[in-house]
């Protein structure tokens, strides 16, 4: 039971340790065959989950002394481990195929010390690969490629790439703020009108991935919509309530943070990985 407990704790050692420094590299091209849009499903990720589950299967069954079940999971693990080692040739050196095969022998011999040793070796191969590649793979395949997203600008009536549209949105917001601050009501009305129209159009980009209304609502909330509506309404007044509009612009900005907090850093990292 003591050794079984040791196995239980062992999986914790397989976690990724980055040691205070992160170096990201663009994932090898061969990996793209196993992720959308080339593959229908994130096949590579599913294989990772299959291996992780198989390791849990070994551990749980040895703890319960069900060695036959543990052996089946070990065989499952080896099959997937070997398969994955062939999927991305650039990563083949991470894999310790000999150790994975010896893991089967150890489970078959009910040799707990052997199992612990082999799982440690195999776990190390996983964590080494994860330390080098997991973050960049997530950035590449989990987060959207904003390079492919375009938005039709409601003011200029032309397609803009996402960066250009964001700059246009931000410029009209800042112009509104500047004109309000210096008491130029006519300039504020014009810039405010552009800001309101662009702030509404921003949802178009969310819809490229977030297809359910509830998801969009979580990003561009009802409060955001009401705030934009209120800004539009106040811009129509004869005398502009400047401070109130400024405060509403800040309030609308909450939705900017919500989105930027999730997407901005991965998008920047992705661009950097692509050398853009």
């Amino acid at each position, binding site marked *: 039971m003591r050794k079984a407990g040791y196995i239980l704790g062992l999986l914790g050692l397989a976690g990724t340790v980055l040691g205070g420094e992160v170096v990201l590299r663009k994932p090898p091209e061969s990996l793209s065959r196993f992720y*959308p*849009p*080339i*593959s*229908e*499903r994130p096949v590579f990720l599913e294989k990772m989950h299959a291996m992780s589950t198989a390791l849990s299967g070994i551990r749980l069954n040895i703890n319960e002394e069900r060695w036959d079940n543990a052996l089946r999971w070990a065989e499952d693990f080896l099959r997937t481990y070997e398969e994955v080692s062939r999927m991305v040739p650039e990563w083949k050196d991470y894999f310790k195929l000999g150790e994975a095969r010896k893991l089967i022998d150890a489970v078959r011999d009910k040799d707990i010390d052997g199992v612990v040793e082999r799982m440690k070796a195999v776990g190390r191969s996983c964590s080494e690969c994860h330390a080098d590649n997991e973050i960049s793979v997530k950035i590449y395949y989990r987060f959207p490629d904003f390079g492919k997203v375009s938005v*039709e600008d*409601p*003011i200029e*009536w032309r397609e803009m790439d996402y960066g250009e549209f964001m700059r246009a949105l931000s410029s009209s917001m800042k112009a509104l703020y500047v004109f309000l601050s210096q008491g130029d009501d*006519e300039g504020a*009305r014009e810039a405010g*009108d552009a800001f309101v*129209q662009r702030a*509404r*159009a921003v*949802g*178009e980009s969310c*819809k*490229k*991935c977030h*297809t359910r*209304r509830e998801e969009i609502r979580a990003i561009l909330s009802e409060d955001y*919509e009401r705030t934009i509506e209120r800004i539009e309404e106040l*811009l*129509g007044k004869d005398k502009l309530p400047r401070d109130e509009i400024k405060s509403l612009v800040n309030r609308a900005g909450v939705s900017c943070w919500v989105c930027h907090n999730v997407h901005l850093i991965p998008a920047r990292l992705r661009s950097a990985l692509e050398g853009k």
Partner: protein
Amino acid sequence: MKLLLLGFLFLVGCEKAQEVFVREELLNRPPSESCSECHSRIYDDWTKSRHFFAWVSENFRKESENYTKLKCLPCHAPLQVDELKKPELRREHRSEGVNCVACHFKEETRAMHGPYDVWSPPHPSRRDESYVRAGFCAGCHRETYKEWREARSEKSCQSCHMRVVDYTWIVDKFPFFLLHSRKALHDHSFPSLKAGKRDIKVFFRDGKLEIVNVGIPHNVPTADQGNPRLYVSVRVLYEDGKEREIRRVLSPSSGNALVYLRPYSIRIPNPEGVKGIEVRIERRLAWKRVREKVYEEVILPVRTP
């Protein structure tokens, strides 16, 4: 031939004849071309429809990232369309999009369903009232259906997008059409239709230009996932010779499409000096690049003495 058929029916009765003539392959989700053997006119209409292009549309291929956005797929190649129910994705003939069997074949009865009570030897048929109700379209066109319900219109989706185009035989193959009476033939090209001057009214009052959808009992434009648009161009002409242009893009994703009978307002700067307002509205369908004019008018201010 007609006499022979009638004689045969007389001898063995309709049910027996059904068994003799039934074509099993029609009950195994055949390609739509099989349906065209007897329903060529409906088939031809359908090949012009967006339902026909639902899967192969280049726009959809791109937006679904090469068919990997799995949640988008069921409505573009549904297995079975049922009232108010989101369909499942089918395995076969996906390139046919929303095809004949998706809408008409029901697994539960293993029969072709439709709005008519007909006797059809090659396949069992069932009359199904859901085919004339708007809810039939709601499994996929959910947002439009919600908008239509809020509009409280008596017209259904089918009233406008599946109008009666002829009064004829729905089976057009000799000699089978002789066994049927003529019926109203509904448009299977499901036209997207275009709003016109009748449907959109524009008013200038209280310093605001108001655009009202008075004719279409759902939002204009409307879509669940695509992004059709209305481009509103307003040129304000002032008494002192100055001009000002205001532009708006109305779309479902911006949440500013024209709701039935709810005015959409645009504030006009310095309204007291306005001589006239040129209003031009164009639309762009989600799958097209070109804009088409739907409304153009000069609105004059109403001067009260």
